[in-house]
Protein backbone atom coordinates (compact mmCIF):
# COMPACT_ATOMS: atom_id res chain seq x y z
CA UNK A 1 0.00 0.00 0.00
CA UNK A 2 1.05 3.55 -0.64
CA UNK A 3 1.94 5.55 2.44
CA UNK A 4 -1.01 7.48 3.82
CA UNK A 5 0.77 10.81 3.41
CA UNK A 6 1.33 10.16 -0.31
CA UNK A 7 -2.30 9.14 -0.68
CA UNK A 8 -3.54 12.32 0.95
CA UNK A 9 -1.21 14.40 -1.18
CA UNK A 10 -2.63 12.81 -4.34
CA UNK A 11 -6.18 13.39 -3.09
CA UNK A 12 -5.68 17.12 -2.93
CA UNK A 13 -3.47 17.70 -5.97
CA UNK A 14 -5.29 17.89 -9.32
CA UNK A 15 -2.17 17.78 -11.47
CA UNK A 16 -0.97 14.53 -9.90
CA UNK A 17 -4.45 13.06 -10.29
CA UNK A 18 -4.48 14.07 -13.93
CA UNK A 19 -1.07 12.52 -14.59
CA UNK A 20 -2.14 9.32 -12.84
CA UNK A 21 -5.32 9.24 -14.90
CA UNK A 22 -3.35 9.45 -18.15
CA UNK A 23 -0.80 6.92 -16.89
CA UNK A 24 -3.44 4.46 -15.66
CA UNK A 25 -5.22 4.57 -19.03
CA UNK A 26 -1.95 3.70 -20.76
CA UNK A 27 -0.90 1.02 -18.24
CA UNK A 28 -4.21 -0.85 -18.04
CA UNK A 29 -4.70 -0.83 -21.80
CA UNK A 30 -1.10 -1.95 -22.20
CA UNK A 31 -1.63 -4.81 -19.75
CA UNK A 32 -4.76 -5.99 -21.54
CA UNK A 33 -2.95 -5.92 -24.89
CA UNK A 34 0.05 -7.70 -23.41
CA UNK A 35 -2.24 -10.57 -22.42
CA UNK A 36 -2.37 -11.43 -26.13
CA UNK A 37 1.38 -12.03 -26.20
CA UNK A 38 1.90 -15.55 -27.50
CA UNK A 39 -1.81 -15.95 -28.28
CA UNK A 40 -2.20 -13.74 -31.37
CA UNK A 41 -4.04 -15.17 -34.38
CA UNK A 42 -0.82 -15.16 -36.42
CA UNK A 43 2.80 -14.53 -35.52
CA UNK A 44 3.02 -11.18 -37.31
CA UNK A 45 -0.07 -9.80 -35.57
CA UNK A 46 1.04 -11.18 -32.23
CA UNK A 47 4.21 -9.12 -32.59
CA UNK A 48 2.25 -6.09 -33.80
CA UNK A 49 0.00 -6.05 -30.74
CA UNK A 50 2.89 -6.77 -28.39
CA UNK A 51 4.74 -3.79 -29.89
CA UNK A 52 1.69 -1.64 -29.23
CA UNK A 53 1.47 -2.88 -25.64
CA UNK A 54 5.13 -1.96 -25.15
CA UNK A 55 4.56 1.53 -26.61
CA UNK A 56 1.70 2.03 -24.17
CA UNK A 57 3.79 0.75 -21.27
CA UNK A 58 6.48 3.26 -22.22
CA UNK A 59 3.91 6.08 -22.21
CA UNK A 60 2.65 4.94 -18.81
CA UNK A 61 6.20 4.87 -17.43
CA UNK A 62 6.94 8.43 -18.59
CA UNK A 63 3.79 9.68 -16.90
CA UNK A 64 4.32 7.72 -13.66
CA UNK A 65 7.93 8.89 -13.49
CA UNK A 66 6.83 12.50 -13.81
CA UNK A 67 4.06 12.05 -11.22
CA UNK A 68 6.52 10.32 -8.87
CA UNK A 69 8.96 13.21 -9.27
CA UNK A 70 6.29 15.77 -8.38
CA UNK A 71 5.15 13.75 -5.36
CA UNK A 72 8.73 13.36 -4.16
CA UNK A 73 9.38 17.09 -4.51
CA UNK A 74 6.16 18.17 -2.82
CA UNK A 75 5.98 15.65 0.03
CA UNK A 76 9.67 15.01 0.61
CA UNK A 77 8.96 11.25 0.56
CA UNK A 78 10.90 9.38 -2.13
CA UNK A 79 8.31 7.90 -4.49
CA UNK A 80 8.90 5.73 -7.56
CA UNK A 81 6.97 4.82 -10.70
CA UNK A 82 6.74 1.23 -9.45
CA UNK A 83 5.01 2.28 -6.25
CA UNK A 84 2.42 4.21 -8.24
CA UNK A 85 1.79 1.33 -10.64
CA UNK A 86 1.96 -1.58 -8.23
CA UNK A 87 0.99 -0.39 -4.77
CA UNK A 88 -2.27 1.42 -5.42
CA UNK A 89 -5.56 -0.43 -4.94
CA UNK A 90 -8.51 -0.64 -7.30
CA UNK A 91 -10.25 2.42 -5.89
CA UNK A 92 -7.17 4.57 -6.46
CA UNK A 93 -6.90 3.75 -10.18
CA UNK A 94 -8.27 6.47 -12.43
CA UNK A 95 -8.36 4.75 -15.83
CA UNK A 96 -11.47 4.76 -18.00
CA UNK A 97 -13.62 1.64 -17.72
CA UNK A 98 -13.05 0.92 -21.42
CA UNK A 99 -9.38 0.12 -20.76
CA UNK A 100 -10.03 -2.56 -18.13
CA UNK A 101 -12.75 -4.60 -19.87
CA UNK A 102 -11.65 -8.11 -20.83
CA UNK A 103 -10.08 -8.61 -24.25
CA UNK A 104 -12.83 -10.82 -25.63
CA UNK A 105 -12.02 -12.01 -29.14
CA UNK A 106 -9.65 -10.37 -31.62
CA UNK A 107 -12.43 -8.16 -32.97
CA UNK A 108 -13.28 -6.80 -29.53
CA UNK A 109 -9.58 -6.20 -28.83
CA UNK A 110 -8.90 -4.25 -32.02
CA UNK A 111 -12.14 -2.29 -31.65
CA UNK A 112 -11.23 -1.26 -28.09
CA UNK A 113 -7.82 -0.17 -29.32
CA UNK A 114 -9.41 1.81 -32.12
CA UNK A 115 -11.96 3.56 -29.87
CA UNK A 116 -9.43 4.37 -27.19
CA UNK A 117 -6.47 5.06 -29.50
CA UNK A 118 -8.49 7.57 -31.52
CA UNK A 119 -9.38 9.40 -28.32
CA UNK A 120 -5.76 9.38 -27.15
CA UNK A 121 -4.68 10.66 -30.56
CA UNK A 122 -6.80 13.82 -30.38
CA UNK A 123 -6.07 14.26 -26.68
CA UNK A 124 -2.29 14.03 -27.09
CA UNK A 125 -2.46 16.34 -30.09
CA UNK A 126 -3.89 18.97 -27.73
CA UNK A 127 -1.45 18.11 -24.94
CA UNK A 128 1.39 18.94 -27.34
CA UNK A 129 0.40 22.56 -26.63
CA UNK A 130 0.30 22.02 -22.87
CA UNK A 131 1.74 24.73 -20.64
CA UNK A 132 3.40 22.00 -18.56
CA UNK A 133 6.74 21.36 -20.25
CA UNK A 134 7.13 17.74 -19.23
CA UNK A 135 3.58 16.81 -20.26
CA UNK A 136 4.11 18.53 -23.58
CA UNK A 137 7.30 16.52 -24.15
CA UNK A 138 5.58 13.23 -23.27
CA UNK A 139 2.73 14.06 -25.65
CA UNK A 140 5.15 14.88 -28.46
CA UNK A 141 6.94 11.58 -27.99
CA UNK A 142 3.74 9.55 -27.69
CA UNK A 143 1.80 10.97 -30.60
CA UNK A 144 3.84 9.16 -33.25
CA UNK A 145 3.26 5.84 -31.53
CA UNK A 146 -0.44 6.53 -31.12
CA UNK A 147 -0.78 7.57 -34.76
CA UNK A 148 0.42 4.10 -35.71
CA UNK A 149 -1.84 2.37 -33.16
CA UNK A 150 -4.87 4.11 -34.68
CA UNK A 151 -3.80 3.26 -38.20
CA UNK A 152 -3.29 -0.40 -37.28
CA UNK A 153 -6.52 -0.79 -35.32
CA UNK A 154 -8.63 1.15 -37.86
CA UNK A 155 -7.28 -1.18 -40.53
CA UNK A 156 -8.53 -4.16 -38.56
CA UNK A 157 -11.93 -2.58 -37.90
CA UNK A 158 -12.26 -2.13 -41.67
CA UNK A 159 -11.12 -5.65 -42.48
CA UNK A 160 -13.42 -7.34 -39.98
CA UNK A 161 -16.39 -4.96 -40.27
CA UNK A 162 -16.34 -5.22 -44.03
CA UNK A 163 -15.20 -8.86 -44.12
CA UNK A 164 -17.06 -12.14 -43.89
CA UNK A 165 -20.45 -12.68 -42.30
CA UNK A 166 -18.75 -14.09 -39.21
CA UNK A 167 -16.20 -11.29 -38.81
CA UNK A 168 -18.91 -8.68 -39.29
CA UNK A 169 -21.15 -10.39 -36.75
CA UNK A 170 -18.36 -10.36 -34.20
CA UNK A 171 -17.62 -6.68 -34.80
CA UNK A 172 -21.30 -5.79 -34.36
CA UNK A 173 -21.32 -7.74 -31.11
CA UNK A 174 -18.11 -6.09 -29.90
CA UNK A 175 -19.43 -2.65 -30.74
CA UNK A 176 -22.64 -3.33 -28.86
CA UNK A 177 -20.62 -4.34 -25.81
CA UNK A 178 -18.05 -1.52 -25.87
CA UNK A 179 -20.12 1.43 -27.01
CA UNK A 180 -21.58 2.30 -23.60
CA UNK A 181 -18.03 2.65 -22.25
CA UNK A 182 -16.89 5.26 -24.78
CA UNK A 183 -18.70 8.27 -23.32
CA UNK A 184 -16.59 8.34 -20.18
CA UNK A 185 -13.43 9.22 -22.13
CA UNK A 186 -15.05 12.27 -23.67
CA UNK A 187 -16.56 13.89 -20.55
CA UNK A 188 -13.80 15.62 -18.57
CA UNK A 189 -14.00 15.29 -14.78
CA UNK A 190 -12.79 17.76 -12.15
CA UNK A 191 -9.07 16.94 -12.32
CA UNK A 192 -9.02 17.06 -16.13
CA UNK A 193 -10.69 20.46 -16.46
CA UNK A 194 -7.71 22.65 -15.50
CA UNK A 195 -5.64 20.97 -18.22
CA UNK A 196 -7.99 20.41 -21.17
CA UNK A 197 -11.10 22.46 -20.35
CA UNK A 198 -11.17 24.49 -23.54
CA UNK A 199 -10.10 21.68 -25.84
CA UNK A 200 -12.42 18.93 -24.59
CA UNK A 201 -15.35 19.80 -26.86
CA UNK A 202 -13.00 19.85 -29.84
CA UNK A 203 -11.54 16.46 -28.85
CA UNK A 204 -15.04 15.02 -28.58
CA UNK A 205 -16.10 16.35 -31.98
CA UNK A 206 -12.91 15.15 -33.67
CA UNK A 207 -13.25 11.70 -32.10
CA UNK A 208 -16.90 11.40 -33.18
CA UNK A 209 -16.02 12.39 -36.74
CA UNK A 210 -13.15 9.90 -36.92
CA UNK A 211 -15.25 7.04 -35.52
CA UNK A 212 -18.17 7.83 -37.84
CA UNK A 213 -15.98 7.86 -40.94
CA UNK A 214 -14.30 4.52 -40.15
CA UNK A 215 -17.62 2.90 -39.18
CA UNK A 216 -19.25 3.97 -42.42
CA UNK A 217 -16.29 2.68 -44.45
CA UNK A 218 -16.45 -0.59 -42.51
CA UNK A 219 -20.24 -0.71 -43.09
CA UNK A 220 -20.83 -0.87 -39.34
CA UNK A 221 -24.02 0.79 -38.11
CA UNK A 222 -23.21 3.63 -35.75
CA UNK A 223 -24.79 2.88 -32.36
CA UNK A 224 -27.54 5.24 -31.33
CA UNK A 225 -27.85 4.50 -27.62
CA UNK A 226 -26.75 7.51 -25.64
CA UNK A 227 -26.66 6.18 -22.09
CA UNK A 228 -23.05 5.79 -21.02
CA UNK A 229 -21.26 3.94 -18.25
CA UNK A 230 -18.86 5.94 -16.11
CA UNK A 231 -17.00 5.86 -12.83
CA UNK A 232 -13.51 4.64 -13.70
CA UNK A 233 -11.99 8.10 -13.61
CA UNK A 234 -13.22 8.50 -10.04
CA UNK A 235 -12.06 5.05 -8.93
CA UNK A 236 -15.38 3.22 -9.29
CA UNK A 237 -14.44 0.27 -11.47
CA UNK A 238 -15.90 -2.87 -13.01
CA UNK A 239 -15.19 -6.18 -11.30
CA UNK A 240 -12.57 -6.90 -13.97
CA UNK A 241 -9.95 -4.42 -12.76
CA UNK A 242 -9.47 -6.17 -9.42
CA UNK A 243 -8.55 -9.44 -11.10
CA UNK A 244 -6.26 -7.63 -13.51
CA UNK A 245 -4.43 -5.86 -10.68
CA UNK A 246 -4.15 -9.04 -8.63
CA UNK A 247 -2.17 -10.58 -11.47
CA UNK A 248 -0.25 -7.47 -12.50
CA UNK A 249 0.72 -6.36 -8.99
CA UNK A 250 1.40 -9.77 -7.50
CA UNK A 251 5.18 -9.64 -7.68
CA UNK A 252 5.62 -6.23 -6.07
CA UNK A 253 3.06 -7.07 -3.41
CA UNK A 254 4.69 -10.38 -2.54
CA UNK A 255 8.27 -9.10 -2.79
CA UNK A 256 8.16 -5.34 -2.15
CA UNK A 257 10.86 -3.38 -3.96
CA UNK A 258 12.02 -6.39 -5.98
CA UNK A 259 14.01 -5.52 -9.08
CA UNK A 260 15.03 -7.57 -12.11
Amino acid at each position, binding site marked *: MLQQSIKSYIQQDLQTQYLLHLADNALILSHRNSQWCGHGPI*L*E*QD*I*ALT*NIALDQLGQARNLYQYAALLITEKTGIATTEDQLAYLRDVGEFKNCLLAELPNGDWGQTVLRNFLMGSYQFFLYQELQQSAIGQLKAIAEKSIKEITYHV*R*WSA*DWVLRLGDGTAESKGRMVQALELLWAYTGEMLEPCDYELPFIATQSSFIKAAWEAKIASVFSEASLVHPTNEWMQSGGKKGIHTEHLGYLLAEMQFLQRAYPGLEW
Partner: protein
Amino acid sequence: MRLYLQKNHYGDYGDGHAGGLEQDAHQDPQKQWPLWEVFMRSKQGLDHKHAGSLHAVDATMALENARDVYTRRKEGVSIWVVESKHIHASDPNAAAEFFEPANDKIYRHPSFYDLPDSLKHM
Protein backbone atom coordinates in the same frame (compact mmCIF):
# COMPACT_ATOMS: atom_id res chain seq x y z
CA MET B 1 8.95 -49.70 -44.76
CA ARG B 2 8.13 -46.89 -47.12
CA LEU B 3 9.41 -43.42 -46.68
CA TYR B 4 7.44 -40.48 -47.89
CA LEU B 5 9.78 -37.72 -48.83
CA GLN B 6 8.75 -34.44 -50.28
CA LYS B 7 11.13 -31.80 -51.44
CA ASN B 8 10.15 -28.34 -50.25
CA HIS B 9 11.35 -25.21 -51.93
CA TYR B 10 11.66 -22.01 -49.97
CA GLY B 11 8.26 -20.39 -49.61
CA ASP B 12 6.08 -23.16 -50.96
CA TYR B 13 5.03 -24.62 -47.66
CA GLY B 14 3.12 -23.11 -44.78
CA ASP B 15 3.52 -23.23 -41.03
CA GLY B 16 1.15 -26.20 -40.82
CA HIS B 17 3.73 -28.44 -42.43
CA ALA B 18 6.72 -27.23 -40.52
CA GLY B 19 6.18 -29.44 -37.50
CA GLY B 20 5.73 -32.63 -39.50
CA LEU B 21 2.82 -34.29 -37.76
CA GLU B 22 0.95 -31.31 -36.38
CA GLN B 23 -1.73 -30.34 -38.81
CA ASP B 24 -4.79 -28.87 -37.23
CA ALA B 25 -7.87 -27.62 -38.96
CA HIS B 26 -7.17 -23.92 -38.81
CA GLN B 27 -3.92 -24.45 -40.65
CA ASP B 28 -5.69 -25.62 -43.76
CA PRO B 29 -3.39 -24.49 -46.61
CA GLN B 30 -6.44 -23.08 -48.38
CA LYS B 31 -6.86 -20.63 -45.55
CA GLN B 32 -3.18 -19.70 -45.18
CA TRP B 33 -2.36 -16.08 -45.74
CA PRO B 34 -0.01 -15.58 -48.69
CA LEU B 35 3.71 -15.34 -48.07
CA TRP B 36 5.56 -12.08 -48.75
CA GLU B 37 9.25 -11.29 -49.08
CA VAL B 38 10.48 -8.21 -47.25
CA PHE B 39 13.28 -5.92 -48.46
CA MET B 40 14.60 -3.12 -46.32
CA ARG B 41 16.89 -0.18 -46.74
CA SER B 42 18.76 0.91 -43.66
CA LYS B 43 19.52 4.53 -42.90
CA GLN B 44 23.00 4.37 -44.39
CA GLY B 45 22.09 1.80 -47.01
CA LEU B 46 21.95 2.49 -50.72
CA ASP B 47 19.85 -0.48 -51.67
CA HIS B 48 17.04 -2.57 -50.30
CA LYS B 49 18.27 -5.88 -48.88
CA HIS B 50 16.26 -9.02 -48.28
CA ALA B 51 15.25 -9.10 -44.62
CA GLY B 52 13.02 -12.16 -44.47
CA SER B 53 9.45 -13.17 -45.16
CA LEU B 54 6.07 -13.01 -43.49
CA HIS B 55 2.37 -13.71 -43.95
CA ALA B 56 -0.22 -11.07 -44.79
CA VAL B 57 -3.52 -10.87 -46.63
CA ASP B 58 -2.59 -7.91 -48.83
CA ALA B 59 0.16 -5.40 -49.53
CA THR B 60 -1.01 -2.90 -46.90
CA MET B 61 -0.93 -5.51 -44.17
CA ALA B 62 2.37 -6.88 -45.48
CA LEU B 63 3.98 -3.45 -45.12
CA GLU B 64 2.57 -3.01 -41.61
CA ASN B 65 3.62 -6.51 -40.58
CA ALA B 66 7.09 -5.85 -41.99
CA ARG B 67 7.27 -2.67 -39.96
CA ASP B 68 6.24 -4.55 -36.81
CA VAL B 69 8.40 -7.61 -37.32
CA TYR B 70 11.55 -6.23 -38.95
CA THR B 71 12.01 -2.60 -37.85
CA ARG B 72 11.68 -2.97 -34.08
CA ARG B 73 15.34 -2.12 -33.58
CA LYS B 74 15.59 0.76 -36.05
CA GLU B 75 16.78 -1.51 -38.84
CA GLY B 76 15.22 0.39 -41.71
CA VAL B 77 13.85 3.60 -43.17
CA SER B 78 12.22 2.12 -46.27
CA ILE B 79 10.42 -1.17 -46.89
CA TRP B 80 9.50 -3.05 -50.05
CA VAL B 81 7.28 -6.12 -50.00
CA VAL B 82 6.58 -8.51 -52.83
CA GLU B 83 4.43 -11.60 -52.80
CA SER B 84 6.74 -14.60 -52.78
CA LYS B 85 4.92 -16.26 -55.67
CA HIS B 86 6.09 -13.45 -57.96
CA ILE B 87 9.74 -14.28 -57.38
CA HIS B 88 11.28 -16.62 -59.90
CA ALA B 89 14.35 -18.46 -58.75
CA SER B 90 17.17 -19.93 -60.80
CA ASP B 91 17.20 -23.71 -60.83
CA PRO B 92 19.82 -25.13 -58.45
CA ASN B 93 20.32 -28.05 -60.87
CA ALA B 94 21.33 -25.59 -63.58
CA ALA B 95 23.96 -23.98 -61.36
CA ALA B 96 26.79 -25.50 -63.40
CA GLU B 97 25.91 -23.90 -66.71
CA PHE B 98 24.58 -20.75 -65.04
CA PHE B 99 27.47 -19.77 -62.85
CA GLU B 100 30.59 -21.80 -63.43
CA PRO B 101 31.56 -20.33 -66.81
CA ALA B 102 32.31 -17.04 -64.99
CA ASN B 103 34.85 -18.65 -62.70
CA ASP B 104 37.86 -18.50 -65.05
CA LYS B 105 37.15 -15.08 -66.56
CA ILE B 106 38.99 -12.91 -64.11
CA TYR B 107 39.50 -10.21 -66.74
CA ARG B 108 35.85 -9.26 -66.27
CA HIS B 109 36.65 -7.72 -62.92
CA PRO B 110 37.19 -3.97 -63.00
CA SER B 111 40.53 -4.37 -61.23
CA PHE B 112 42.27 -4.12 -64.62
CA TYR B 113 41.17 -0.56 -65.11
CA ASP B 114 42.18 2.71 -63.45
CA LEU B 115 39.09 4.18 -61.86
CA PRO B 116 38.62 7.96 -61.90
CA ASP B 117 38.70 9.48 -58.40
CA SER B 118 35.21 10.90 -58.84
CA LEU B 119 33.74 7.41 -59.11
CA LYS B 120 32.30 6.32 -55.76
CA HIS B 121 30.73 3.14 -54.45
CA MET B 122 32.66 0.65 -56.61
